[in-house]
């Protein structure tokens, strides 16, 4: 062991130390959860579970609402991401490129939803949503998910616009490029990293909303957290672990989907 350590330089030592640290912090918990979801009665101080069984997964799969909840979750999250893109891009562009009166007030206003506890907003909003007739509907849930997502989306896009600057835009403008050409050939490719992180961030935030969905969705809009969170008050760890894995897989699936879509869009744009 000593010889092995001696053979390594300081740099390699630091690298392997970091590697081990990352494995402990990020990979080990995932492995533990995976193992927990197929274990029976895994008690301290046993290092490994005493028995394996798929019971937890079976009871998750048996839930007749599982498919419905997955579809609703994707539907809600997809619409939330779409609305965020539509709203955040113009807002971020305006905030980064123009100076106008009361800009700091508007900035503060746009950020305020994440400073106020969401549950308070939801209770107040439920009243209004009932009167508008969109409570207990998917569309109401989509709107209420904008509260915790839009401020982040605007921040992310604004950073992207500021990094890009306006000189390229002006150049294209002088050369006679129209609004759409400018957006699709300059802004979109340069903003791609920001758009990517916006989509992932808003998707994950929307996915994790329990209280807002429960109050505005009124139990008729069943997303995955609605099935998953009640299990926290039972002591069957295996089911909770199974749900957690399912929960972690959704963003991965979404990223994959988004990547494919983006490649297709960019290829189409380049051809034009």
């Amino acid at each position: 062991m000593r010889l092995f350590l001696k053979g390594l330089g300081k740099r390699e030592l630091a690298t392997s130390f970091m590697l081990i640290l990352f494995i402990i912090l990020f990979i080990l918990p995932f492995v533990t959860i995976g193992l927990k979801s197929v274990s029976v009665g895994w008690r301290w101080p046993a290092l490994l579970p005493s028995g394996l069984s798929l019971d937890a997964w079976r009871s998750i799969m048996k839930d007749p609402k599982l498919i419905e909840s997955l579809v609703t979750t994707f539907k809600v999250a997809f619409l939330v991401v779409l609305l965020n893109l539509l709203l955040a891009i113009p807002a971020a562009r305006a905030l980064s490129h123009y100076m106008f009166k009361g800009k700091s007030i508007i900035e503060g206003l746009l950020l305020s939803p994440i400073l106020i506890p969401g549950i308070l907003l939801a209770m107040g909003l439920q009243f209004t949503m009932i009167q508008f007739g969109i409570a207990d509907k998917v569309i109401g849930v989509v709107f209420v998910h904008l509260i915790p997502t839009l401020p982040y989306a605007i921040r992310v896009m604004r950073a992207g616009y500021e990094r890009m600057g306006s000189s390229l835009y002006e150049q294209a403008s002088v050369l006679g490029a129209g609004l759409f050409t400018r957006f699709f050939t300059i802004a979109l490719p340069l903003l791609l990293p920001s758009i990517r992180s916006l989509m992932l961030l808003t998707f994950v935030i929307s996915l994790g909303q329990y209280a807002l969905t429960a109050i505005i969705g009124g139990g008729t809009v069943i997303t995955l957290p609605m099935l998953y969170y009640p299990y926290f008050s039972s002591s069957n760890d295996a089911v909770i672990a199974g749900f957690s894995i399912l929960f972690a897989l959704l963003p991965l699936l979404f990223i994959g989907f988004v990547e494919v879509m983006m490649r297709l869009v960019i290829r189409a744009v380049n051809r034009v």
Partner: protein
Amino acid sequence: MKRKVTFIIATLLFIVACGNSESNEMGNKEVLSKEWDEIVTSSKGTEVNLFMWGGDEGINQYIDKWAAPRLKEEHNITLNRQPMNTEEFMQKLLTEKKANKNEGTIDVIWINGSNFKNAKNADLLLGSFSKKLPHFQEYIGTQDQNANYDQGTEINGLEAPWGNVQFVFHYDSSKVDIPPSTLGELKQWIHDNPGMFTYPNVSDFTGNTFVKHLLMKGAGEESSLLSKGFDKKVIQDSEEYVWNYLNDIKSDLWRNGETYPESLTKLDTLYSQGEILMTMGFNEARGESLIENGTFPDSTKSFVLKDPGSISNTHYLSIPFNSPNPEGAMTVINFLESPEAQIAKMDPKMWGEGTVLNFDKLSEEDQQMIETLNRGESVLSTEALNEYKLPDIDTGYTEWINNEWANRIVEQ
């Protein structure tokens, strides 16, 4: 530009105006004056949304796999179980009441105790319906204690009993030979086995009920008064016993009583990990499914304290004021109170909890079925459970325990 703005504002106003079209001026209370046959007939082919806590596979399965298909077959009713925590649907109903939404989404709710008290006071429930249900009349009756008081709150037919559970302790029989059978013996056991016992924080329902047993014991002969409304005098006579007991055991509890598990789930986890040797809770049969799925060790058995006894708790089904389908809701509740449904609910593979039906009023056939039902190794016999059964006490004491416990036990 200006025209555009005007147009947008006009559109918005239009949308706002459209939203408020939902109003059910008739009110749905008129169902309460209908004949039962009429109610059953008009509920055919409808959907009923049952809102209930969804964190137990056994309970969920009982509704999804046992009750729903039979309701479909017998009454052509589609039963939708909607998982939602009690506080959330209470909040939802409160807001809907405030917003005058007379056509809601909830048909049946699962409540009891303080939630029922709040719902009753805020006028969130449809009205007195339980005496209309044939199964309620036949097998429970209006004289039944559970049909009249829910933890000290008068029921007035606003909710119908659904299940009855008793408070039991679970222990690991491979490590504890003879479980204690009185509060005195329990105290002795805790002293002999320091660090192996604790109870949940009293803000948790289970922890609170544990302390209620002490209050029952302390009240002695006056204990029958505890379920008939909050009485300061009873407390004065019995509080000394409660706080002395808890302070005496404190230093021998898990982690020397410096901290208490915040919920029953945490207590169960400590027990399942072998950190402590006993856990407790409502539902005499709740150990069965936990042993089955490996959470509790196989050697888990249960016991009740013969002195003072074991508090029982009844939970109920009710119909909210803005149920879109009260006829269907009543048909479903009546079905869930049938002997068939209640006996199936006792099966430990499903839910395993006790029935609310009066044993003497059942047919001989049904009585025999209950007697021969194998509720599992960890469940005490029906006779033993009935012998030491105590009624639940008024919700006023729950709050009293909450407030005093923080002052007298935690801060010392």
